[in-house]
């Protein structure tokens, strides 16, 4: 990851899950603090300088969403991912409304959580910069205003959704974007599309931007999703 070690706060009362998440994040270069209840979590959140907070929805002492409200009320803008065992897309809406930046239903795959944690930080970094009108990865460029995409100086014609899909990948350049993240961001549906739906869309996009070029940019990350990167 980056040159500066990033700290993540995991607020989760189930020790098995907490350990699993902490271990995974640790292996990916993060320093992880674990809080086992809402109060402790809130204390840590207001105190430490975290890159992101992973917050369980149901906690002893103080409910996850209350913790979230308290964090936001204290003016702390750390990105928060809410975890929930309630397992329905509706819970997601509630979580997002109470100020979380993303939401993940249990059971989840660790790769999904990791991809989302990284995307959140990316988003935070982008928000700090003036609004970009041009995105690029190697010789692939996207002009957001002209809605024009070029690969090696040659224009690539994309459908509107393909354009948004590529934009999402470019904004998360060098990082994994999962299939569900794509469905959410590009089509605004929060379900698992099941069959290889997203894969087919990606393979079409790949054909358009990578075919005929020496270096492939759109990579498949096995068991996780896809990544746009100029290094294989």
């Amino acid at each position: 990851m980056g040159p500066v070690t990033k700290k993540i706060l995991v607020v989760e009362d189930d020790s098995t899950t907490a350990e699993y998440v902490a271990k995974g994040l640790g292996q990916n270069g993060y320093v992880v603090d674990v809080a086992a209840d809402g109060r402790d979590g809130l204390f840590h959140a207001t105190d430490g300088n975290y890159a992101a907070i992973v917050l369980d929805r149901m906690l002893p002492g103080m409910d996850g969403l209350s913790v979230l409200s308290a964090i936001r009320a204290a003016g702390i803008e750390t990105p928060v991912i809410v975890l929930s065992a309630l397992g329905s897309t509706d819970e997601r809406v509630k979580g997002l409304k109470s100020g979380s930046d993303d939401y993940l239903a249990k059971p989840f795959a660790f790769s999904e959580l990791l991809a989302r944690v990284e995307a959140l930080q990316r988003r935070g970094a982008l928000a700090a910069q003036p609004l970009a009108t041009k995105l690029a990865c190697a010789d692939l460029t996207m002009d957001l205003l002209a809605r024009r995409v070029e690969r090696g100086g040659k224009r690539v014609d994309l459908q509107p959704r393909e354009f948004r899909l590529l934009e999402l990948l470019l904004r998360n350049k060098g990082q994994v974007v999962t299939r569900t993240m794509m469905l959410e961001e590009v089509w605004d549906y929060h379900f698992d599309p099941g069959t290889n739906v997203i894969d087919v869309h990606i393979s079409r996009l790949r054909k358009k931007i990578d075919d005929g070029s020496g270096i492939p940019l759109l990579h498949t990350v096995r068991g996780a999703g896809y990544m746009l990167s100029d290094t294989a």
Partner: protein
Amino acid sequence: MALISLAFSLVIILPVLLFVYHQTDRLYEERIRDRVQDGERDMLFAYASGGLPALVDSIDDVIGTGAMRGGVVLVVDPNGHKIAGNLAGWPPILRTPTDWVELRLYREGQTGAELFAIRTVGLRNGERLLLGTAIEEREHMRAALLEALLAALLLAIPLGLVGGWIVLKVTERRARAIGNVAGRIAAGDFSHRLAAEKETDEFAILARAINAMLERIEELVEQLRLVTDSLAHDLRSPLTRISANLERAATTSADIQQQALEAVSLDVERMLRLISATLEISSTEAGTGRQHFEQFDLADLLRDICEIYTPVAEERGMAITLDEPEPVTYFGNRQSIGRAVANLVDNALKYGGGSISLGAADHGDRVELWVADRGAGIPSEQREHALVRYRRLEEARTTEGSGLGLALARAVARLHGGDIELLDNQPGLRAVMTLRRGPDNLSSL
């Protein structure tokens, strides 16, 4: 129980007996009064026609012939002196006229006082007339009546007890029949049913209600068993593969390890998907999701789904066409409905064939969405099965998929007051999802 039925019969019998007593008493009283009034009328007639002498004659006549047996009669002059009659003098407390009083009086020639019902009337020249009849007799009759009624009551008690006992036995026998069936069911045998006679008595009604309840319970238990069995079955194969792949990963080269772990990760993902779908069906069936209804265009939703799945269809040599619908504004859970339609399309892609068509129609109080294909379809007798959670059709077992798609779609339709119907598309399958427009929806328009 027998005591309760006895008490109940007494509660009914007592007022009846009291009524009989009261009525008999009243009739008797009326008869007595009629007799006195008849005598009075005769005497007043005598007085009117022949004056005081005629009245005195009439009184003497009555006393002499014994026609006033058990009665009293007296006429006094304006000063209260006796003119004729069988009383020694005018009772001082009696005024004239008096309509019926009861008094104890001594008749001439009698040693004891007797109870009389008495009337007095003033005559034209200031004389006063008193007429009365003994009602001692009435007291006897009352006593006799009471005795008879008491006897009836005493007879009612054993009869009530016996009747109560019989009713008790019959009730007990039928309650026991219900209890026995309930007991067998508690012991795990859900196939028992109560004998529901065609009669319309309370027990037959109860038996039918209980049978209906048992039917539903058996269905739910069967469903639960099916879900558990199928979930276990569907989890077993990936778990077996995972176990084999992990063994492989533990013993061989880095390359094979990589392959094995990727296979493991794929299987885990498959299982997570299965569990998520199961959880989602449960929560949808429980009705969560109503609080997230929003207004949106179903035609837009169909276009989205169409766009998402078109590349997949093309890759399989199929096509998706949208019967370009008019905007259909609907108030519901957009995410769930999107997912349901996606599942129907996904199913059509997997099991159907040829061209898949999507469409929507607005019928005012309800909206219809359909997904139709030109594949082999589902035999009509198996269509209901296909909609039940986990009841994947046997031919479909071999195909990749959890078999939860249709069940989830049906749960979503039901969340919106509708249902899913599987129809023959001649050839192929036509899945029609009906969504209702309820009062909620109307108020939001």
